[in-house]
């Protein structure tokens, strides 16, 4: 008899675990909406930061900075990841692909602060300049492994009948991959790319010593730039109430963008659970 009771208790406990986990997300979202929502204003989106201690500043440059960084990250990371994934799935033998996969997993697990240090040594020091470029490189490096493994995975999923049909029609390998296989896998690949970008959009640590920070607009790509995650960190750890309010609002914007991207992509693009979970 008590076995049945134990059964009921333990099973409900597991349900409780799920409830706790899931409700945390809704709680976070709710709290941010509550605290950040009231400070979202036209000022916030269009003004530059005000001098320390004065109110009325905004985050326009941080938002644009984040977008520019994402653009660079995509430009560096996506081609390498994509083409590398094609290599693993379509060409390649035994040793090199194994090495590449292993290295991709390795790079994926490297803490983002270490990648930031690497980008500092690689880009900032030789250039003697903090820059959007350095930040873009750091984020780009983080994008590569996810895109690579994801591309490989979806390319492999494309049924061999499609490939063989294309060969039968006289295509060479490159044409087959480019015109038949890639398009067939494109949805999944795009999923992976967008999710990888959504992930790096929220990264703070790699930007601390690369993109640095900027109180003004950052023209071009060679100047330091402000970015949403870094400014949230700066303002949240400061004492000014005005900064705190801006940090909440910025947190809401950032989280909103990340969650919306994740939800849209996973619901409409993804076909299943076979993309990398990292």
């Amino acid at each position, binding site marked *: 008899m008590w076995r049945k009771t134990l059964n009921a208790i333990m099973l409900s406990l597991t349900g409780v675990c799920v409830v706790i986990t899931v409700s945390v997300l809704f709680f976070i979202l709710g709290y941010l909406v509550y605290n950040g929502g009231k400070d979202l204003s036209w000022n916030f989106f269009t003004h530059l930061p005000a001098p*320390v201690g004065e109110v009325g500043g905004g985050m326009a440059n941080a938002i644009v900075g984040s977008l520019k960084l994402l653009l660079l990250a*995509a430009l560096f990371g996506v081609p390498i990841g994509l083409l590398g994934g094609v290599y693993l799935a379509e060409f390649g033998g035994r040793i090199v692909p194994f090495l590449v996969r292993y290295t991709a997993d390795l790079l994926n697990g490297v803490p983002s602060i270490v990648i930031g240090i690497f980008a500092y040594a690689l880009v900032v020091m030789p250039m003697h300049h*903090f820059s959007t470029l350095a930040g873009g490189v750091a984020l780009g490096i983080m994008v590569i492994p996810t895109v690579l493994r994801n591309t490989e995975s979806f390319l492999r999923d494309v049924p061999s009948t499609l490939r063989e049909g294309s060969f039968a029609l006289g295509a060479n390998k490159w044409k087959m991959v480019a015109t038949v296989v890639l398009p067939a896998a494109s949805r999944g690949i795009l999923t992976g790319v967008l999710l990888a970008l959504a992930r790096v959009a929220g990264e703070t640590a790699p930007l601390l010593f690369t993109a640095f920070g900027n109180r*003004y607009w950052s023209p*071009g*790509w060679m100047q330091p730039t402000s970015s949403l995650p870094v400014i949230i960190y700066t303002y949240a*750890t400061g004492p000014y109430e005005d900064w705190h309010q801006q940090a909440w609002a910025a947190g809401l914007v950032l989280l909103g963008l990340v969650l919306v991207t994740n939800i849209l992509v996973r619901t409409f693009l993804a076909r299943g659970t076979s993309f990398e979970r990292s």
Partner: protein
Amino acid sequence: MRIVKIFSVVAVLLVLGTVAIAEGGQVLLNAAGATFPYPIYSKWFDQYHQAHSNVQINYQSIGSGGGIRQLLDKTVDFGASDGPMSDDQLKTATVPILHFPTVLGAAIPSYNVAGVQGDLNFTPEALSGIFLGKVTKWNDPAIASANPGVKLPGDDIVVVHRSDGSGTSYIWTDYLSKVSPEWQQKVGKATSVNWPVGLGGKGNEGVSALIQQTPGSLGYIELIYAIQNHLPYGKVKNSSGAFVKADLASVSAAAAAVAKSMPDDFRVSITNPEGKAAYPIASFTWLLIPAKFTDTAKRDVVKDFLKWMVTDGQNSCEALSYAKLPKEVVAKEMKAIAQIQ
């Protein structure tokens, strides 16, 4: 193919991004360093930008240690620090670095103690005892004896210090080293030390935030941070025995003795000075400017800014509770600006 199309769009965007905003005639300077004077610097750079719209001086307050390091690595155009660079650090620089004092500020003991709203008096022994971890409770005799009539709770003192390399830490530890041989021997003075106790906050901003949020805390911050954030701060006993609160007068008094005998490189410590009205934990804060610039446009902007800073700029300090530079120092600086090539 679609992929090619997407990439060409992106490439066009990139080119546009590079071209569109890089207007000619803009001079963009990047600087980094002390959080101690950050409020006045951000005001100044903003004012200067309003007056000269083609100049943008982007100052990031990452702490004096960061300012010195980034300057030595040459990733910023100039730095800022409240702890003057040491001879060793100056030797490692590839071009000579000049120190230019900008304002006078004060490092004050700010606290968050239940039931205490007014000013507490701190003796040098109390402060060094607290930071060494020997005085652990608010109602310890070391503090209580200087504050007769104040009801101090028996709560633990939560010490707050800097987690980053800080000129404010330099000023504070410089003072403690002068008044406490034990501190001098055990810890020493530097922008980054091995703190015996306490929580670490990043920047004056972070320490202020911790004091704000942590009951029972005591930390050292620049005066304006306490004022802007409505944090109480105490009086400190100076070398003449008087308990002095940091304000424009007491900080200026601290610099008075040194004003006439300022060394040529402007590196000087004014903690624990002579003078009945002097606040004992005050300091100059410096901009660290390379003596040689390769970019003439930047050099001219820097020189012009420095000239503006020691004259018109000084008018904005007092509103933010920084004391103006003594006029002898200003005169000396104007001559020194000519050294920048």
